[in-house]
């Protein structure tokens, strides 16, 4: 191996002893099980893949219409449609396991027992590096947001799952609460290794001709560039209150967006809705981040995490342009 040159950039980072090759991931529910886009994107260039949420039994999901575009974003109400953990293990994991990137299994459930059952089953499988727990889906009646907006329930789920695994345990938090930092604080205390911030924001759109909602479930989850400022503020809030790493999520469409999240306090980022627009965008963002670091003499992107400049004296032009 060549000796490191002056311009070499360390893109990798380590979380609880697990090394991830870079700081750009694809968010759960926006990259399927990876195989859908194998001809369009080289997932091996990513830090990791967060799988579509997995429940114990397959879930059909909500009736159409499930998605609608809104200003700079989209509302969705998929309803955790997924093939179930058993079919995932049988049909999808063998492909994912062969990839040269980390696989993080996202788990959704409608009871504490179901979370535990799914995780226990996945514990017996090779090829999964971490778990992300979805306690914050706004589009299902049972579980989902009921758990994620209840601080003690979120803590209880974290504590229960912590007992079942030594692997990296990430809790995905909802922004649909008054103080997201309280939830981050609780899951940190209960042994979570990291948090994902944020899941979608509850939103709504109406067709004025029919006077009907544009989604079959009336409300849905807002995502995309529209929510980036909100997500950044939530990451910043959480970063100030906990020590565990944060996966920043919310409308990331470029390396510049990803850098904002790192500065606000995210250790890594997940690209979500933009995968629908450009399936290879996450790989481009990872490459652009490396280029940015090299051109700016940053030897390790980790040096940027949480380094928001607290000098709040602004030149007017600078803050406007």
């Amino acid at each position, binding site marked *: 191996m060549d000796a490191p040159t002056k311009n070499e950039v360390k893109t990798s980072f380590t979380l609880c002893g697990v090394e991830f090759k870079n700081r750009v991931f694809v968010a759960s529910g926006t990259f399927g099980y990876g195989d859908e886009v194998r001809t369009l994107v080289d997932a091996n260039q990513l830090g990791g893949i967060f799988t579509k949420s997995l429940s114990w039994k397959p879930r059909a999901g909500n009736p159409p219409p499930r998605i609608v575009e809104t200003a700079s974003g989209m509302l969705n109400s998929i309803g955790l449609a997924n093939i179930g953990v058993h079919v995932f293990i049988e049909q999808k994991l063998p492909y994912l396991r062969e990839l040269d990137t980390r696989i993080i299994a996202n788990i959704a459930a409608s009871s504490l027992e179901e979370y535990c059952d799914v995780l226990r089953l996945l514990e017996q499988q090779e090829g999964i590096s971490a778990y992300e727990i979805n306690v914050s889906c706004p589009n299902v009646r049972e579980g989902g947001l009921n758990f994620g907006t209840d601080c003690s329930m979120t803590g209880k789920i974290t504590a229960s799952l912590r007992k079942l695994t030594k692997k990296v345990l990430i809790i995905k938090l909802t922004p649909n609460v008054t103080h997201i930092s309280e939830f981050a604080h609780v899951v940190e205390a209960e042994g979570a290794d990291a948090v994902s911030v944020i899941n979608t924001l509850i939103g709504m759109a109406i067709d004025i001709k029919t006077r009907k909602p544009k989604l079959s479930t009336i409300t849905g989850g807002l995502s995309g560039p529209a929510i980036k400022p909100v997500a950044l503020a939530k990451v910043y809030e959480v970063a100030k209150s906990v020590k565990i790493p944060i996966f920043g999520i919310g409308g990331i469409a470029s390396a510049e967006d990803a850098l904002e999240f790192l500065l606000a306090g995210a250790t890594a980022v997940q690209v979500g809705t933009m995968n629908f627009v450009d*399936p290879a965008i996450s790989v481009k963002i990872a490459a652009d981040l490396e280029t940015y670091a090299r051109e700016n003499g940053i030897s390790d992107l980790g040096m940027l995490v949480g380094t928001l400049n607290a000098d709040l004296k602004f030149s007017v032009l600078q803050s406007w342009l």
Partner: protein
Amino acid sequence: MEESKTKRKTVMSGAMQQFCDVQSCVEVSAKTFLLRFISPEIAASAQPGQFVNVLAAETGEGPLLRRPFSISRIDGDIVELLFHAIGKGTILLSRKRNGESIDVLGPLGQPFRIDTDYNTALIIAGGIGVAPFPFLTSSLQNLGKRLETFLGYRNDKQIVTSHLKNVHIATDDGSKGFHGNVVQLVEPFIDQKDLGKVKIFACGPTVMLKALSELAKRNNICCEVSLEGHMACGVGLCQGCPVERTGDGAKYALVCKDGPIFLTTDVIL
């Protein structure tokens, strides 16, 4: 009808993402545009019934998500799209001119099954549902199938018949052709003895497809339809475009990946 019981060979996605030069975009009838773009790769690999997912503008300059369009015709290295300019995304696309480019993902989805056992193909379209049929027409002609085309429109302002064969027209207001809907026009036609075994290929409003589905069932005719769905990605990532399936197994199929072409016996319209 026996086709529905045999599992269709799924076309694996050979989709690519390309920036393609627009050759031309012209209004061919009221609010209906024909856009031609250059892609030797898509032109070579696409099959009738497949679609492309198109981004007309850079991020921030237009709608966020792509818009899906049936591939209307292949002309050498040129791919043609026929669409109604009725929303932000389609109006933006309709203003593309020679020399500008569009971001195209495709070809996507499952094509029409044309190489099956029938003598006469009935192509039936409502409004802009005509879009996929010039491509299908040329493929059916290459196979030597007999072909009759039935188009239904609100009035005579919207009619598009280029590259179609043996066209019969119905208009709701009677301004051209048969006064009534296209299903009423086609119904007496299928009783003709000399058609041999018939297969229907259709695209249009759901209410029309539903009526056709019932007509096909009554007459024991195989009927394939091209469906629309609200979709973001077009490749199965977003799960945004479910259509309810008949029979056992999964409740929904996805329009983008399992369709957009479905046998009417396989879905609940």
